C-alpha cells in the first residue's frame, strides 16, 4: 500500500500544483518539495520489504490476459527510487530559491513533481509496457521542463528535439515489446526472464536487446542519439541537475541493468553496448574540452559519464555501472547546482569566458564546484574514484581491453576539461565586463551569454561583479550533497565483499560466468585492480597538470583574454559543431521529410489525385454543354435525330435477324 503512496504522491502534487498553482502562489514550492520528501521517506521505510528476496509487488490494472500491470520494488528499483526521491527532494528545495519570482513558479513544481512520478513509474513498473509508459512520461516531463520558458524559441525547439529523439527510443522499445509478446504473449519481467532461454533464439535475443538499447541511447544521450542533451540545457538549471544529470538520462543504465539476464545471454548485445558506451564516453569528454557554456560543459561531461555507466552495464559489470550511477547522481547534481548558483548570481550568465576570478566572490560555490570536480575526475577517496575505476576495471575484467583503454584515456580527458572549467571560472580576473567580441564570441545569443544587456548594461560598476549571495534554500541542498559526493564511494571499498557487492550479491548474473550458451568463460585480467587504479590516476594527474598549465597559472587578465580569444577563434569546426551530428540530421532527415510533405500537399493532392477527379467533372460539364448544343431548337434537326435512331434500329433488326435467317 505504501508503494502506491510513493508512486502517487508526486502525481497528486503535479495535478494539485497544475490546477491550483495560481492560487497557491509561493506555497507551491514548499508543497511540491514536501510531497517528494514524504515520498522519499516512504521509500526509505520500504527498504526492508524491497531487499527481501523477491521484493515488493502490488498489482495495478489489467488490459487483457497476459497484460497485467503492477508495481514492484526490488533492490535495483530501490536504489533508483531513493535517488529519484532523495536527490529530487534536495533539488526541489534548491529550486524554491532558484525559481523564486518566476512567472510560473507553481507550474515549475508541477512539472518537477510530474517528472518524479514518471520516473518512479519507469523504475517501479514490473513489466515492459509499464516501463515503456514511464519511459514516455519522463520524456514528456523533460519536454515540459526544457521548454519551461516557452516564450524562448530556442527552448521550444530544444524541447521538441528532445521529445522526438526520445520517441525514437520509445518506438525502438516498442519494437522489442512486439518481439517479446509475439513470442510469449506476456509482458512481466519475471515471465520474460523465465522464458528467455527457451523461447528465443540468440538472433531474436539480440534484436530485442538492440531495440531496448536504442531506447537507452535515446534516453541516455548515447551516440548517435545524443544531440538533444546539450540543447536540453535551455531548461532551468535545477532541471538540468535533476533530469539531465542525476536521474532521467541514467534510465538507460537502469534498463540494461533491469534486463541484465537478457544482456548476459546475448554477447553481441554486450559488445555493441559496451562499444557504444565507451565511444560516447570518449566523444563526450572530447567535446567537453571545446565548450564555453558552463552548462554545456557539464552536459557533455554527463554524456561522457553515462557512457561509462553504459559501458559498465553493457560489458556485464552491472553493479559497477549502477554504482557509478549512484555516485554520479550526487556529484553531478552538486556540480549543476553549483553552476546554478553561479548563473543565478551572474544573472543568467553561462559563458565561462565571461566569468573568472569568482573564487573570492563566491567561496561557497567554489567549494561546491571544486569537490564536484575532484569527485568526477576521480581524485582518490572521493566517490567518483571508486565507481569510475570499478567500471573501467570491469571492462578489463570481462575481457574488453580496448574498452578499458578508451576508459582510461577518457578519465584523463575528463580530468582535463573539468579542471579547465574550474580554473577558467574561478581563477584569474573577472571578465564579465569584457566586450564579447574581444573574447572571440561572435554570436553571444548563441553562446549562452544570454541577457547580455542585463549583465553589463544594467550595472554601471563593471569592475565589481554584482553577486547577491545564494539564499540558504539554494546553498543548503548543495551543502548536503557534498557529503555523499565525498563519502559515498566507500560503500564499494573492499572488493568482493564490500557493502555494495553484498547488496547486489547474486542479484545480477555475473557476466563472466554465464554466456548465451551457458558455457563458463573466464577472462584472466592481465593485472590487478590496484595497478589499473594507478594507471588511471596517473592519467588524471596529467590531465590536471595540462589544465593547470593552460588555465590555472594565473596570468595577467589581458593575456588570459587573448588566449581565450585565440582558443575560441581557432576552435576546430568539427568540435565547435559537435561532429556535425545536428547538421547531418537536418540535411538527411528533417529537410527531406518536410520537402516530401510539402510535395504531397502542394503537388500530389491537388495536381495528382484531384486532377483526375476534376477532369472527370469537367468532362461531364463539357458533355452537358455538348448535348445542349445538339438541342438546336429546329424541328427538322430533331426529326433527323429520330430518323438516325430509326436507321440504327432498322440496321440492327435487319442484320441481326436476316443474318439469322440466312
Amino acid at each position, binding site marked *: 500500500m505504501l508503494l502506491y503512496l510513493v508512486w502517487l504522491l508526486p502525481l497528486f502534487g503535479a495535478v494539485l500544483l497544475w490546477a491550483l498553482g495560481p492560487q497557491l502562489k509561493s506555497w507551491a514550492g514548499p508543497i511540491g518539495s514536501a510531497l517528494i520528501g514524504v515520498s522519499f521517506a516512504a521509500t526509505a521505510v520500504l527498504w526492508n520489504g524491497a531487499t527481501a528476496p523477491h521484493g515488493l509487488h502490488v498489482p495495478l490494472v489489467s488490459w487483457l490476459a497476459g497484460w497485467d500491470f503492477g508495481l514492484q520494488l526490488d533492490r535495483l528499483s530501490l536504489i533508483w527510487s531513493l535517488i529519484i526521491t532523495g536527490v529530487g527532494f534536495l533539488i526541489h528545495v534548491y529550486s524554491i530559491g532558484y525559481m523564486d519570482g518566476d512567472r510560473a513558479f507553481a507550474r515549475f513544481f508541477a512539472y518537477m513533481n510530474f517528472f518524479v512520478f514518471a520516473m518512479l513509474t519507469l523504475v517501479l513498473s514490473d513489466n515492459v509496457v509499464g516501463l515503456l509508459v514511464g519511459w514516455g512520461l519522463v520524456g514528456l516531463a523533460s519536454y515540459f521542463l526544457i521548454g519551461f520558458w516557452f516564450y524562448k524559441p530556442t527552448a521550444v525547439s530544444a524541447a521538441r528535439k528532445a521529445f522526438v529523439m526520445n*520517441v525514437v527510443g520509445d*518506438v525502438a522499445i516498442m*519494437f522489442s515489446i512486439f518481439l517479446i509478446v509475439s513470442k510469449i504473449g506476456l509482458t512481466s519481467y519475471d515471465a520474460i526472464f523465465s522464458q528467455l532461454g527457451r523461447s528465443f533464439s540468440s538472433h531474436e535475443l539480440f534484436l530485442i536487446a538492440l531495440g531496448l538499447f536504442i531506447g537507452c541511447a535515446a534516453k541516455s544521450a548515447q551516440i548517435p542519439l545524443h544531440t538533444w542533451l546539450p540543447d536540453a540545457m535551455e531548461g532551468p538549471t535545477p532541471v538540468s541537475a535533476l533530469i539531465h544529470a542525476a536521474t532521467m538520462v541514467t534510465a538507460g543504465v537502469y534498463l540494461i541493468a533491469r534486463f541484465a539476464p537478457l544482456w548476459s545471454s546475448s554477447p553481441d548485445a554486450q559488445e555493441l553496448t559496451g562499444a557504444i558506451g565507451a565511444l560516447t564516453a570518449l566523444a563526450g569528454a572530447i567535446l567537453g574540452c571545446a565548450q564555453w557554456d558552463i552548462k554545456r560543459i557539464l552536459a557533455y561531461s554527463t554524456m561522457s559519464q553515462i557512457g561509462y555507466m553504459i559501458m559498465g552495464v553493457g560489458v556485464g559489470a552491472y553493479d559497477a555501472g549502477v554504482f557509478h550511477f549512484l555516485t554520479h547522481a550526487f556529484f553531478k547534481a552538486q556540480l549543476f547546482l553549483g553552476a546554478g548558483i553561479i548563473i543565478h548570481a551572474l544573472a543568467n550568465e553561462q559563458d565561462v569566458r565571461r566569468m573568472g576570478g569568482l573564487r573570492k566572490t563566491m567561496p561557497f560555490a567554489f567549494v561546491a564546484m571544486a569537490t564536484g570536480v575532484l569527485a568526477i575526475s576521480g581524485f582518490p577517496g572521493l566517490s567518483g574514484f571508486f565507481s569510475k575505476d570499478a567500471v573501467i576495471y570491469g571492462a578489463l575484467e570481462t575481457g574488453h581491453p580496448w574498452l578499458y583503454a578508451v576508459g582510461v584515456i577518457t578519465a584523463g580527458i575528463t580530468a582535463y576539461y573539468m579542471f579547465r572549467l574550474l580554473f577558467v571560472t574561478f581563477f584569474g580576473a573577472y571578465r564579465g565586463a569584457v566586450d564579447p567580441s574581444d573574447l572571440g564570441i561572435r554570436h553571444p545569443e548563441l553562446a549562452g551569454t544570454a541577457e547580455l544587456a542585463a549583465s553589463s548594461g544594467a550595472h554601471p560598476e563593471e569592475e565589481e561583479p554584482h553577486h547577491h549571495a545564494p539564499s540558504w534554500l539554494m546553498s543548503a541542498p548543495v551543502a548536503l550533497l557534498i557529503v555523499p559526493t565525498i563519502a559515498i564511494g566507500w560503500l564499494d571499498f573492499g572488493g568482493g565483499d564490500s557493502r555494495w557487492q553484498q547488496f547486489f550479491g547474486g542479484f545480477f548474473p555475473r557476466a563472466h560466468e554465464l554466456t548465451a550458451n551457458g558455457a563458463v568463460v573466464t577472462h584472466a585480467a592481465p593485472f590487478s585492480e590496484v595497478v589499473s587504479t594507478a594507471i588511471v590516476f596517473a592519467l588524471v594527474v596529467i590531465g590536471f597538470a595540462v589544465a593547470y598549465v593552460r588555465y590555472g597559472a594565473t596570468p595577467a587578465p589581458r593575456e588570459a583574454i587573448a588566449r581565450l580569444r585565440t582558443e575560441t577563434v581557432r576552435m576546430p569546426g568539427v568540435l565547435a559543431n559537435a561532429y556535425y551530428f545536428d547538421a547531418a540530421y537536418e540535411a538527411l532527415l528533417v529537410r527531406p*521529410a518536410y520537402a516530401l*510533405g510539402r510535395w504531397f*500537399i502542394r503537388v500530389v493532392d491537388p495536381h495528382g489525385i484531384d486532377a483526375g477527379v476534376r477532369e472527370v467533372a469537367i468532362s461531364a460539364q463539357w458533355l452537358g454543354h455538348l448535348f445542349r448544343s445538339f438541342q438546336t431548337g429546329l424541328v427538322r434537326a430533331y426529326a433527323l435525330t429520330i430518323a438516325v435512331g430509326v436507321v440504327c434500329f432498322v440496321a440492327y433488326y435487319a442484320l441481326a435477324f436476316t443474318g439469322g435467317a440466312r
Partner: protein
Amino acid sequence: MTVTALVLGPILIGLALYAIPRERGGVARIVAAVVAALTFALAAADPNAADASRHWLARPFDASFHLGFGPVSYWIVLLLALATFGGALALSGPRARDVAAQLLVLQGAMNGVFLAKDMLLFALFWDLMLIPVFLVLIQTPHARAAWKYLLYNLCGGLALLLATAAFGAVAGTTDVIGRTGLHVMIGDLWGTWIFAGFAFAFLVKTPVFPFHTWMPDTYADLPPPVVAVVSSVQSKAGLYGFLAVVLPFLGPEAARAQTLMFVLGMIALIYGALASLAERDAKRVVAYSSLSHLGLILLAVFSGSVLAIQGAVVYMVAHGLFSAVLFLVLGAVEQREETRDLTRLGGLGARNPKLAGALMLAALAALGLPGLAGFSGEILILTGVFRAGFVWPAIVALVAIVLASAYMLRLFQTVMNGPEVPDLPERRDMTWTEALAVAPLIAGFVVLGVAPGRVVDVAAGAAHAAVPNAAAFSRAPVAPEDSRVVGSR
C-alpha cells in the same frame, strides 16, 4: 426500444429544432447538448438493450429495420454522444440553430449506421449521413468542399448500394450484421465484385490514401463542432463497415485483398504524417494526421489478428475522442484569432493556459504518449499485426509514430508556444462551456489510456466474428498464446 430511441430521437428533435427562431441559437445549442447527454445516458444505462426489429422487405431479399448494439458499435455510440455533446456546446455564430439541428440529425443518422443490423438499413443510414454534412457545408462561403465531399462520398455510397443489392440478390437476405454461425455462400465472381463495392465505399469514407483528398477540404471548411463529430465518428464508419459488414461474410475476398489494403494503409500512414508535417492550416494538420492514424487501423483490420482488431476498436474510440478535442480546441483558437494559419499564430499559451492544456493533452494522446488512449490502441494493434507476421508494416507504423510526435508538437508549439504575436486580436482563456465541451472527451481518453480492459474484452467478440479464419490472413503461424491472450476474461 432504447436503440430505436437512439436513432430516431436525435433526428426528430433535430428537425424540430427548426421550429426555434433563427435568432435563438443559444437555446438550440442547449437543447442539442441535452439530447446528446441523454443519448449517452440512455446507451450507458443498458449496455445490453434488446434489438428492435421490424420487417421491411420480403422481395427481392429479406430486409428489416433491425437495430441493436454490437460489440463495436456500443462504444462508438457512446463516443458519438460525447462528441455531439462537445460539438453542441461549442456551437456559436449566427447559424447556431441550423448547425445544431443538422448536428442532431447527423448524430441520429450515424447512430443508425452503427446500430444497423441489416445491410440495407446500414446503406440507408450511410447515405442519409451525407445530407446533414452537405447541408452544413453548402452554407459555408465557398462550396468547393461541399461538392468534393458530395462527389466522393456519394460515389462511395452508391457503390455500397450496388454491393448491398448484389449481396441481397445472392444471399437472399441482408439482415445479417452481427449474426454468428450464419453461412452466406457467395460465389467467387460475385464475392469479388461485392467486396470491391463495399471496400470502395469504406475506403472513401475512412478515407484511405488515393480517396482522401475530400477530407482536408471538408474538415477545413466545416464549422469546428461539426468537424469534431465528423472526424471523430464518421471516419470510423468505413472501418466499422470492414469489421462488422465485410469481414464476417466476405472473409476469403478480404484475405485476397489483404496485400492491397496493407499497401494502402502503409501509404496512408506515411503520406498523412508527412503531409501534416508540412501543412500550414491547423485544421488540415489534424485532418492529415487522422489520415495517418486511420491507415494504422486499416492495417489492424486486415491483419486478421484478433489482438490487433481489439486494439483497432480501442484506437477507433481513442482517435474519436482526441480528434474531437483537437478540432474543438482549434475551433476555439480560430474563433479567437480569426486565423488557422500556423505561420501567423503563436504564443497563445501565455494567456490561455487552459486552452493550451487541452490542446496539449489532445496532441499527446494523438502522438501516442504512453498512458493515454492513443498508446494503448497503437501498442495492441501493432503487437497484433507483428504477431500475425507482418514485420515491415509494423516498422512503417513505428516510423509514422515518430513522425506523429513531430507534427503534433509542431502544431501545439506553433500555436501555443514561442513569443506572443502582437497583431493577433485580444485573447481570453477557455470559457466554462468550452471547457465543459472538451472535459468528458479528455477524461475519456485518459481513462481509456490507463485501463482499456473493458473495451478490449467486449471487442473480443467482434474480433472473433471478424476473423473466423485468422489463418487465411496471418502470414506467420498464429502463436498458440493467441487464444489465451484473447480469451475474454
